[in-house]
């Protein structure tokens, strides 16, 4: 099935052996040749010594999801040879280190096995254990370059960019490239049928992971206080924020910082810090993942009820409990939507890729401050830690942040008396003040019963008045959150509806189904609560395939609850084994469900 500019390369190595930079070099080289790529990392939940895979999909069409093929397997890890070979798609190739013979590799006749003595070659050409290991990685890049006909100029240039002044490193790396390249060229018919051919499909595109993009969004939103507790797969979000801040938030004269990153003692403290900072008027956020959300539950309820802005990035991983920390899933939707005891509901935003992580991050602060409530950005490991090709982000230098209804000292001067929880505008959103601004602005923030004036109460009707207003605010939120992406293929009765990282696989599936003459409409929700558009879309269709990455149909659940979508027409296609979604799953499932419906 592999073809020119439509190949899936998978590299099997051991973690901690430095293969990440070699894999990145490979991915970038293809991208620089103008050919779209997708890069996915499959790594274990440990630090060193276990099998790890990097998958590069070369996709002229620019699809964003993983493919369920493996055309060219580079099996560098003896522990997983057997498994890796089994995975190669019929007609594909397997490259392995033939320094040691592997007779079991002759098992499959439907694939081509290419042995390259990487270790031997590197031992002959390089000194030092560490160098030899690193160079072996570069050497397989060289071999792949030959097999797929990559542009060596581009590779050279990338190495130069990486090592800059360190010319000797450029030289030694190029030597390793050559070793692999030459061996392949001499021993095999290069290039393979499936190769990479320069084109012009990556213009104005970048390759980035979602955590970096979200961090950049936080910088652009003007966030100043980031509190967090490390947890995979959200850690790199704060790491990136720290790097950007080191660059853009240090006063060049005084060397002083205009940001505070606080590594909290745990997630309970991290969210407490965010609430404290937001209360003071700073834009503040915390990145975390499932277990962290569970620990933040009590504070999230306080923020909801006391109406304090907060931005929480939940980079979801496979649950429940510790689950599989290095695998992806979308299974925190329900627990985030209704986090905390008592009557609560929370705004969720669902970016679908790194580009949206950037814009959604900015939006999340605007919405949190406008609505005075926690906003949770639900990304996942696939978006957060994998390499996506996305259009260059745009930034409007005229952007005016929405700080919401905050009374200034002047406003307060002109007021008789300030009451915190009055709904003066009829939109369910009260006015707030910032501590320290003005003597008249003081009020008491509390999670205990309070009335609309902000006073403590145990009076049932005063209490009820406030929680009822929160429902009105929810309706306002519905009008402010991002609208879904909707695509009509033709005016038919069936559609696919998905969320977040389901987007890539579903869109590709739409194309594939269309090629089978099945034209489905498409809706990708971007936020909870759902607005009119989602409701209208659901109502308009007779069958909606709800594609999501969890076991319990959590998105479907929200559709049923928030817009009373009729469950009879919502057909769940659930993918939750921890791997990113691929179009094949969607296509197969849709076809199966269609067949079932016909049979019934």
């Amino acid at each position, binding site marked *: 099935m592999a073809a020119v500019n439509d190949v899936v390369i998978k590299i099997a190595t051991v973690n901690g052996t430095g293969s990440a930079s070699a894999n990145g070099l490979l991915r970038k080289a293809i*991208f*620089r040749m103008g050919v779209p790529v997708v890069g996915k990392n499959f790594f274990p939940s440990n630090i060193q010594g276990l099998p790890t895979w990097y998958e590069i999909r070369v996709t002229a069409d620019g699809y964003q999801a993983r493919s369920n093929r493996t055309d060219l397997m580079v099996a560098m890890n003896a522990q997983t040879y057997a498994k890796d070979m089994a995975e190669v798609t019929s007609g594909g190739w397997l490259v392995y280190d033939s320094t040691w013979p592997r007779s079991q590799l002759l098992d499959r006749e439907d694939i081509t096995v290419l042995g390259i003595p990487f270790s031997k070659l590197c031992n002959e050409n390089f000194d030092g254990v560490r160098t030899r290991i690193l160079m072996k990685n570069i050497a397989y890049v060289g071999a792949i370059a030959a097999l797929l006909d990559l542009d060596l100029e581009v590779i050279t240039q990338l190495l130069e960019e990486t090592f800059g002044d360190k010319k000797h490193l450029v030289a030694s790396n190029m030597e390793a490239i050559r070793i692999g390249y030459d061996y392949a060229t001499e021993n095999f018919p290069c290039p393979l049928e499936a190769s990479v051919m320069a084109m012009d499909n*990556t213009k104005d595109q*970048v*390759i*980035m992971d979602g955590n970096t993009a979200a961090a*950049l969004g936080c*910088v652009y939103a*003007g*966030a*100043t*206080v980031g*509190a967090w507790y490390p947890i995979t797969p959200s850690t790199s979000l704060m790491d990136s924020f720290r790097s950007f801040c080191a660059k*853009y*938030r240090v006063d060049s004269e*005084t*060397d*002083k*910082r*205009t*940001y*505070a990153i*606080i590594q*909290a*003692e745990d997630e*309970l*403290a*991290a*969210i*407490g*810090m*965010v*609430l*404290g*900072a*937001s*209360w*003071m008027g*700073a834009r*503040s956020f915390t990145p975390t993942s499932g277990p962290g959300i569970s620990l933040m539950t009590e504070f999230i309820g*306080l923020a909801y009820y006391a109406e304090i802005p907060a931005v929480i990035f939940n980079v979801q991983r496979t649950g429940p409990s510790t689950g599989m920390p290095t695998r992806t899933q979308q299974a925190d939707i329900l627990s985030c939507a209704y986090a905390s005891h008592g009557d609560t509901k929370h705004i969720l935003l669902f970016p679908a890729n790194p580009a949206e992580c950037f814009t959604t991050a900015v939006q999340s602060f605007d919405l949190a401050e406008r609505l005075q409530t926690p906003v949770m950005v639900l990304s996942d490991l696939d978006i957060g830690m994998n390499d996506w090709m996305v259009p*260059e*982000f745009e930034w409007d*230098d005229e952007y005016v942040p929405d*700080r919401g209804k905050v009374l200034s000292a002047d406003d307060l001067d002109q007021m008789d008396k300030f009451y915190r929880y009055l709904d003066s505008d009829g939109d369910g959103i009260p006015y707030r003040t*910032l*501590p*320290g*601004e*003005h*003597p008249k*602005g*003081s*009020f*008491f*923030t*509390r*999670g205990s019963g309070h009335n609309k004036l902000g006073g*403590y109460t*145990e009076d049932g009707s005063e209490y009820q008045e406030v929680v009822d207003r929160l429902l009105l605010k929810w309706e306002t939120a519905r009008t402010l959150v991002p609208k879904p992406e909707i695509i009509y293929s033709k005016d038919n009765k069936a559609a696919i509806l998905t969320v977040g990282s389901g987007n890539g696989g579903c869109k590709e599936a739409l194309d594939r189904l269309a090629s089978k003459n099945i034209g489905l409409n498409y809706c990708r929700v971007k936020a909870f609560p759902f607005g009119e558009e989602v409701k209208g879309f659901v109502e308009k269709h007779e069958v909606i395939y709800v594609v999501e990455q969890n076991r319990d149909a959590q998105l479907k659940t929200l559709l049923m609850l928030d817009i009373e979508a009729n469950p009879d027409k919502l057909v769940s296609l659930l993918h939750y084994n921890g791997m990113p979604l691929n179009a094949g799953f969607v296509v197969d499932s849709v076809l199966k469900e269609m067949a079932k419906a016909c049979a019934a």
Partner: protein
Amino acid sequence: MSYIAKPKVSHPKLPKNKLGLTERDYEGSVSTLCAGCGHDSITSAIIQAVFELDIEPHRLAKISGIGCSSKTPTYFMSESHGFNSVHGRMPSVTTGANAANRDLMYVGVSGDGDSLSIGAGQFVHAIRRNLNMCYLIENNGVYGLTKGQFSASADIGSKPKKGLANQQEPIDAVSTALSLGATYIGRSFSGDKEQLVPLIKGAMLHKGFALLDIISPCVTFNDHEGSTKSYAHTRQFYHHVVDMDYIPPAKEIKADYEKGSAMPIKLHDGSKIVLRKVDKEYDPSSRAKAFKYLRERSNAGEIITGLLYVNEGRPEMHDLMGNVDTPLSKLSLDSLRPPDGELERILRGYR
């Protein structure tokens, strides 16, 4: 919370401070605590301290957890911003608030349950950061609001109203703070306003984490015979070790301190505190020695009070982080963004 409206009469003859405010102006709503509760005395000591320090009410933030003690921020400084958060989590809220706005004064009020049980983790980590705040533990040895269970500060052998005496080792806030490096540590008693007011003043002005562990008897659940946190027991075993005077910025040190026993310390705003050592052996500048002294005395059943350790030298959280002087919350968002057009440059690195 009260059904009685607070009388808002003007009292022209009440003394005024530099801001022209009277002590009344630093009061809050009427307390709903039990009559005689130690916490109310601490509230009034706080009011006196802030009045005398001429603090602008709206420039002070008062934060608490949950408990009878944590209710008290409602009972002082009604013109200040208050945040009654969740049980045991006052330190993190204060940390975030302070990170956002370093210019305000932060008073955290907590209980022994709030700080030493559910909040123990946050308590120790706020100390580690040398968070610039005044942290008050209103310590009664019990959970008042949930009706009298022993807290982690209950002493071994202390008897409940009914049932068996406590057998678990107490967590002593003072020695915990010493072992973690808090930079201003005092212990006092709600019934000793004379000692308490200067301690609070110093704690408010100290730049860094100032802890006051204040024994504050719970008249309803822990003031009976056999309780080691009762008024009677506290009075009986109470020892001043290092008292202090607070001296405002302008004033000179006048009082005639006995040589060797007085130790003046300059605070960051120019004011001073003078330590008066009652026990000359005591060294309030050494964590190691202070700890040893305190343990030995507490083994002997003594309650050692006063300003027990102070270190004006250690940088507080913002300085440890190297932050700008302007509160982060006051920076305009525009000034925080990379320059116009910079995004394109950044993105070039991702091609």
